[in-house]
């Protein structure tokens, strides 16, 4: 239990505590500002940390990463703009809540759920860092593909009224994911000779396009029809406070999200966005009130927020012991270790054990710091933002969408991608196609394709490789079983309520 002396040594160091609180605040602000991401902030602050002691530098950047991930939910709820890729799932319910004047409530749920998820992830990391690394090594391409396969089932729970349109949307997502370099042969495909397209379509511009710009276009159309008779965002006292009674139903979703996120964090490369969507899908499937999900259910904020924050902790295990970064932030942290002359690898826990546990302790204190700032500060921010009338807010959102798409990679081409995706998102809304299914399959398709083809190259028995390896087989069966249950559920619903498929 090396964590306790580490916690104590961090708590008795006032400058370090100050750095943690500062990092928590910086992370929240950059996460909440559309166009700034925690990874961009870390990259910018990296040179400064060269002159700090290693623990100071690592703790500062690590906490920014953590609180930035949480800060993304603020932008998702208030502006419908995913501050980070991981918060796209949060906006599905978070933004409708904000529009009905419950922004403060939604943000408090997001804060509590983030803390729960993040702490669960960190506890798992502290307790089982060696074990996690061992698992990550056992999972080769066939196992990873089986996990992707099981994750695809999630699409079923967000698929919406029309199964045909839902599947078409998912296929569209897969098709977009195919653009760029072939993951195995490194040859260009679907690039039509365009150099920019050879890099593939970025997740951030795509999401900002379909979610934000698409929404703005849809709203503009509504307004024209309604001749300006659209309700303004009103914020009331009751919309900002959160009672225990209200949070209680969120609790199981937060804990489930925490487990899903922590599990996904163990697997290098899957990432927070996938964790958030899986948790959202699973949550909706098990919810008592699935009809409210997507229209402003507090549980729909709790599930993805807990999951995307829970990824942070366990993803440090493959990073520290195997040198595999699970995210951009992970890659930068890896650089910081090396710049300070600390060799990342299986020997890290022998050579720099104290430092590593102190870093974990800083991470936990960082969670508490952003939790406190978020819980009491976010409501104030929400109140301020919602005072802005929609006819001012929408142009602002419109503008930030452009800034956000450009600044993620400093690429004008991404702005084009976002604009095209925006029109696509608007058309998909108009004709009832399913945007969530499209984005989820986009996120999953790349990894699934890569691992599937790697498995076949590795295998001497063709596709049988998935059956021969027990872990892979287990996940395939899990996926198929979930699918079978889902079909049975739909058939039952259909029998009960003739006509509609009910579940949205």
């Amino acid at each position: 239990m090396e964590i306790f002396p580490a916690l104590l040594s961090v708590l008795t160091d006032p400058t370090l505590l100050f750095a943690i609180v500062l990092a928590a605040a910086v992370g929240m602000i950059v996460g909440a500002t559309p166009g700034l991401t925690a990874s961009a902030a870390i990259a910018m602050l990296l040179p400064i940390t060269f002159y700090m002691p290693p623990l100071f530098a690592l703790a500062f950047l690590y906490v920014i990463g953590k609180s930035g991930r949480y800060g993304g939910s603020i932008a998702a709820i208030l502006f419908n703009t995913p501050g980070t890729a991981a918060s796209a799932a949060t906006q599905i319910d978070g933004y409708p809540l904000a529009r009905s004047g419950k922004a403060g409530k939604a943000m408090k749920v997001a804060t509590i759920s983030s803390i729960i998820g993040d702490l669960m992830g960190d506890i798992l990391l502290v307790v089982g860092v060696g074990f996690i690394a061992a698992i990550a090594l056992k999972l080769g391409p066939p196992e990873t593909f089986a996990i992707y396969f099981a994750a695809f089932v999630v699409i079923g729970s967000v698929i919406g009224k029309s199964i045909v349109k839902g599947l078409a949307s998912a296929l569209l997502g897969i098709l977009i994911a195919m653009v760029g370099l072939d993951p195995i042969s490194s040859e260009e495909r679907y690039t039509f000779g365009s150099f920019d397209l050879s890099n593939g379509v970025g997740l951030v511009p795509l999401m900002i396009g379909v979610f934000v710009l698409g929404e703005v276009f849809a709203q503009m159309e509504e307004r024209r029809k309604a001749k300006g008779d659209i309700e303004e965002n009103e914020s009331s006292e009751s919309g900002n406070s959160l009672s225990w009674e209200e949070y209680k139903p969120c609790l199981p979703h937060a804990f489930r999200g925490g487990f899903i996120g922590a599990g996904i964090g163990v697997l290098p490369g899957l990432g927070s966005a996938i964790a958030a969507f899986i948790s959202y899908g699973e949550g909706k499937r098990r919810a008592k009130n699935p009809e409210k999900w997507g229209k402003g259910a507090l549980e729909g904020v709790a599930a993805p927020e807990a999951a995307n924050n829970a990824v942070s902790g366990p993803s440090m295990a493959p990073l520290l012991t195997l040198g595999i970064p699970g995210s951009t932030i992970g890659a930068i942290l890896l650089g910081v270790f090396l710049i300070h002359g600390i060799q990342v690898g299986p020997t890290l826990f022998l050579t720099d054990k104290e430092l590593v546990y102190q870093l974990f302790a800083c991470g936990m204190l960082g969670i508490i710091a952003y939790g406190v700032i978020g819980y009491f500060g976010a409501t104030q921010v929400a109140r301020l933002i919602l005072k802005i009338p929609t006819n001012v807010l929408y142009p602002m959102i419109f503008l930030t969408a452009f800034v956000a798409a450009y600044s993620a990679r400093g690429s004008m081409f991404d702005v084009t991608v976002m604009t095209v995706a925006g029109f696509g998102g608007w058309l998909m809304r108009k004709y009832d196609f399913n945007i969530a299914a499209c984005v989820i399959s986009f996120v999953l398709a790349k990894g699934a394709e890569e691992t599937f083809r790697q498995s076949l190259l590795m295998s001497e028995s063709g596709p049988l490789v998935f059956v021969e390896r027990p872990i892979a087989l287990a996940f395939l069966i899990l996926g198929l079983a979930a699918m079978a249950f889902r079909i049975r559920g739909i058939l039952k619903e259909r029998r009960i309520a003739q006509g509609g498929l009910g579940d949205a």
Partner: protein
Amino acid sequence: MKRRTFVSAAVAAIAVTVSTTASMAADWPKRPINLVVPYKAGGGTDAYARAISAAAEGILDVPVVVVNKPGSGGLNGANSVVGARPDGYTMMMTSGGSFLLSTMTRDTEIDALESFQFVAQVGQLQTSLMVPKNSPFQSVQDVIDAAKANPGSLRWAHSGRGGFHHVGGLGFLANNGIEAQDVPFKGGGPTRAALIGSQADFGFLGVQQLAGFEEQLRALAVNSQDRDGIMKNVPSFGELGIPFAAVSSPVIVFAPKDTPADVVAAMEAALAQIAEKPEFAELLASRGTGPVYQNGADAKATLTSMKADATPLVESLTN
């Protein structure tokens, strides 16, 4: 006293003349220098750039700012520098071997040898043949024998087709007349993890990737004539008498084509000084890499001869 004034006046006069003839170099650098790295932060080339940036203090009067422009196998960043203003404030540091190979295999107008000026080489990344610790292969000959006994049964991992690790591996296979199925992974870290987890029989990955993983992996040989300057315990193909293709990746700083010659020369001199600084070597040592300096002309010659070595392998790739 009088004499002294005269001398100092003369020195000043000479200094003025020198500075007017070399006005561009004397003016440079006035602003921070942007060093574009066409890969993500945290990678091998990025580590070199960060170390340059840290060690440049005291040698260059302005900061060296590392700008990561990843994408398209390093061509994204190269594209942004090839069209940059040639004023000496935008340069690129890239992994020369990977850059050369991607210009050969991909549809691009950039020519690694012609589109830029070579400023200097500051480091070297070399690929090597590694196996998991529990592998039955104790030597390179074991791998060759196993592949010959059962052609096509072995699987080997590398960090992406068309990269210098892949081409180096292909060169090893072709020169020894053996066949094995390749399994590409995305980048060095995942390749190493896959090899540790015995997902493949052997792999070609950077020799520096062994640092800290000596208990998990066994490096059988480094892909060069002589041993690596830092990972000295790993034998080389050259000393083992095993034929190979001389593909490596010198870490080179490039400047846009029309950058004034005196600015390039000034940067070259600065890089030579930086490469000699002990701090620079220290920053790189934990990564298993170190400084390997060559001036611009020599770096260009190295890359030119590598192109000749790689051409047949690349042709076998693209057909």
